[in-house]
């Protein structure tokens, strides 16, 4: 079992009074000797203090909300007031561009979002063979049921104990894509794509490029699609060439 999870459970048993006298005594002895366990226990106590004071938590929440609102308002107003003419001109230009795009461009050039949707394949065949823990079984079951958020919680848990498992990292990144958390997906996929020994490297490159496209980092996406298109034995070579054509990059 992941050591951190083990500590967490141990602390929970102790705090909830679920240990008998001897177990509690052993726990306290271990607390003196095991620095990691002690740190975990201290964190749990500090957290308990911080969030059990619901009065101050509620007040702080209101203050933070007001500060954030004020910051947004100030930034927008400062921008408009500092450049009134440029702002008005920019607004007119944006309106014109939007109108022209709607009339002429949309039918011919698909948006990045539409391209992403037409090339992204959510049906991932399960190819994990390494490891057979219950967490992994549960994660895969949830993944196949398309319960991506919950599946990803299990994948994250497994990665904590086995950070080099690129298969799990890959499926976790698919979960992030499915739940529209593209930044996290990019972090995972980049890590796999940089590992020359990973069996998931080529798939990761493809999905990484699609993620960049989805968040409108088109230049990065095109670079990666070109890299894939130049690789004659890449699983996604044909797709990369097609998408580059649609992006008018060939």
């Amino acid at each position, binding site marked *: 079992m992941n050591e951190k999870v083990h500590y967490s459970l141990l602390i929970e048993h102790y705090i909830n009074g679920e240990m008998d006298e001897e177990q509690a005594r052993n726990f306290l002895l271990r607390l003196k000797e095991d620095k990691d366990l002690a740190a975990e226990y201290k964190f749990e106590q500090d957290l308990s203090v*911080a969030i059990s*004071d619901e009065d101050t938590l509620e007040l702080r929440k209101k203050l*933070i909300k*007001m500060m954030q609102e004020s910051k947004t308002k100030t930034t927008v107003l400062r921008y408009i007031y500092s450049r009134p003419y440029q702002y008005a001109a920019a607004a007119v230009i944006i309106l014109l561009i939007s109108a022209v795009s709607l009339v002429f461009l949309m039918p011919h050039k698909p948006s990045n979002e539409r391209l992403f949707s037409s090339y992204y394949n959510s049906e991932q065949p399960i190819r994990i063979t390494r490891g057979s823990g219950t967490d992994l079984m549960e994660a895969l079951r949830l993944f196949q049921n398309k319960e991506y958020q919950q599946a990803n919680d299990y994948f994250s848990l497994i990665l904590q104990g086995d950070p080099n498992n690129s298969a799990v990292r890959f499926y976790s990144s698919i979960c992030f894509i499915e739940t529209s958390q593209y930044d996290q997906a990019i972090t995972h996929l980049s890590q796999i794509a940089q590992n020359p020994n990973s069996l998931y490297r080529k798939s990761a490159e493809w999905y990484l490029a699609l993620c960049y496209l989805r968040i409108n980092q088109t230049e990065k996406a095109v670079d990666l699609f070109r890299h894939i298109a130049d690789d004659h034995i890449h699983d996604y070579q044909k797709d990369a060439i097609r998408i580059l054509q649609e992006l008018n990059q060939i």
Partner: protein
Amino acid sequence: MLHYSDDEVLVGLIRKDEKVIRYIFNEHFNTIKRFIAHNNGTHEDAEDVFQDAVLIIYEKVRDKDLNLECSFKTFIYSVSRHIWFQKLEKNRINPANIGDIENFIELSDEMMYEVYDEDRERTKIFQQHFLALGQDCQKLLQLFMKKIPLSEIMKIMGYKSVKYTKTRKFLCKERLKKRIINDPRSQNFLINE
């Protein structure tokens, strides 16, 4: 905009009345921000100090430990000023050169002792990061801290199994921990432990 008397402000604060809190923010935050900026602080420092000041005043009113002998305006400025003093001292900057922009009162020794300490700072950082978590994680961790049975938490949160509830709680806690560890303000108390 509505105007509140100092008594109304204190009553509204204790009720955590949103209108009154907004009034306090609109009336006083800019002064504190100017004061902090005038004394080598950033906008983020001002937000931090203002939060601390309002919470300290709230706790004092809640615990019936405040006898306001000056205007609320002077008091909140004095508390904020004092907090900033202590932060400067902690960072070995001489607060003797502090520049004031409002009237202030010197706070009593007893009050000064309570205004700012490490526990308060730690709780603030924990709370700020806790509030930045998703609603789901916040609710889950709060239920756990209240020692509500797992099976009940599972039902409240609409999860399918007790095991998943435990896993989710662990991950939420890890997310929170990561945020706190990465906060430069945490380094002081993390190193001290």
